[in-house]
């Protein structure tokens, strides 16, 4: 009894496609709440159309957004999961199959020559993040493809360890202000705080992936999330940068300890559409889509 490479590839394909078609429920609920609270008529029209568009995508089993982005996966290996085959190859094959069958626009290109592989995969793409869960008896895969608009506006800054928190808050607010209309607001913002250069971007990615209705368990971080959300919504960027109260759906923060002399901060700007779809694969070959 094991999880075969074929089962992993099929799950990766299904997850990739579903993540481009289905709007996560928590995002939909937040859009709906913010539409009700929005005072600009133009902003409300846009928020209603965003939800209507997601309904059509679901019904037609077609993409929500044309920017199908670069494929990315978060893979959690359970300590008791028995894997038969090459997970990385399976995920590459699943992505290529999904790109062809959905279809998605293949965006994976060489960074210098711009040569397009034509199937959405290539060296280092899909991007894969790994975790281990010692007690789990399953392999958990989350498809989390990422579009270009938000990443273009994302930023990382290395502060010294003596930098006051006010400077960090200013950097986050200024990054959002600078992004303005470009990343398809209302945005979803993930902040990475601490670690070192090599890990702070991963913290920000993890933060942006957290469902909007889950606050950070640490009250101090929770308070900071709420404070920053208040600031960025006060900027008045509004949906698509055309003005309004709805600039940001959530600010999520993840932190880790850092050095005494340094404070890395990463601000991952997401558009209103964070793609995420998860499944658990069990040793008996069954796949449970969450």
């Amino acid at each position, binding site marked *: 009894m094991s999880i075969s490479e074929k089962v992993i590839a099929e799950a990766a394909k299904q997850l990739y496609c579903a993540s481009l078609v289905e709007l996560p429920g928590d995002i939909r609920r937040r859009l709906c709440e913010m539409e009700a609270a929005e005072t600009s008529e133009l902003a409300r029209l846009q928020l209603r159309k965003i939800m209507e*568009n997601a309904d059509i995508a679901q019904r037609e089993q077609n*993409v*929500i957004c*044309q*920017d199908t982005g670069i494929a990315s996966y978060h893979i959690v290996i359970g300590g008791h999961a028995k894997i038969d085959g090459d997970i990385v190859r399976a995920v590459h094959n699943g992505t290529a199959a999904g790109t062809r069958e959905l279809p998605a626009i293949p965006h994976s290109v060489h960074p210098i020559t711009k040569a397009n592989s034509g199937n959405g995969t290539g060296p280092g793409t899909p991007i894969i993040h790994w975790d281990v869960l010692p007690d789990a008896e399953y392999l958990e895969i989350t498809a989390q493809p990422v579009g270009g*608009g938000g990443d273009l506006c994302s930023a990382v800054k290395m502060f010294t360890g003596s930098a006051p928190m006010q400077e960090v*808050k200013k950097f986050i607010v200024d990054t959002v202000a600078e992004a*303005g209309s470009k990343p398809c607001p209302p945005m979803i913002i993930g902040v990475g705080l601490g670690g070192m250069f090599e890990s702070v971007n991963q913290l920000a990615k993890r933060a942006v992936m957290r469902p909007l209705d889950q606050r950070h368990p640490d009250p101090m971080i929770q308070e900071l999330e709420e404070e920053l959300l208040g600031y960025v919504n006060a*900027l008045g960027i509004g949906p698509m940068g055309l003005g309004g109260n709805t600039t940001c759906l959530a600010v999520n923060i993840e932190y880790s300890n850092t050095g005494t002399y340094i404070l890395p901060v990463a601000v991952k700007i997401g558009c209103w559409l964070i793609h995420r779809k998860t499944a658990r694969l069990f040793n008996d070959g069954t796949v449970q889509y969450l």
Partner: protein
Amino acid sequence: MTERHLTLPLDEAAVRQLHAGDIVYLTGEVLQLLGPAHQRALSYKAQGKAVPFAEENIAIYHCYTCLTGDDSQLHCRFMGASTSAGVNPYEPEFIRAFKVRAIIGKGGMDQETLRAMQEVGCVYLAQIGGCSQLCTKSVQKVEGRFWDDLAANVGVRIRFQELGPLIVGMDAGGTSLYEGVRQQILKQQAAIHKEIGV
């Protein structure tokens, strides 16, 4: 919010009647044209070479299209606007060279582009970003494509029926909703800095 249903091609007089904040629905042929296609069209024009589209009163779309089928019968699986800021460096010259009447995109364009729009008589129409299906369902026919070698940045002639809602984000009178919001952001940003204590 004034709602207008317009048929392409638009002439200068029609464009000058549109105002920032109006809601527009478009019917007719639009060209998918991104940065690389702008560069090529401008270099052809400079060399006196013909381009595969009308040389005036055109409507262009900063978008990506997922096409299936072959050139005899192209089908649009989905499409939608891309961030217009990337086209800023080429747009003012392009608007003047090809008498562009409407640019569809998302996120708005810079002040240089706004000046060219004002001078020639052109509007910027904002698609609601990320709403691929709202645009795709308005595609009546894919008329053809050109400059295939530009891969995803290929030129595409697309006929729409009631493409919208599009928001007039920048008008030919020189009003830009984006610029208004930008000024507001700067003001708010200063107030927030003060509140943070920096």
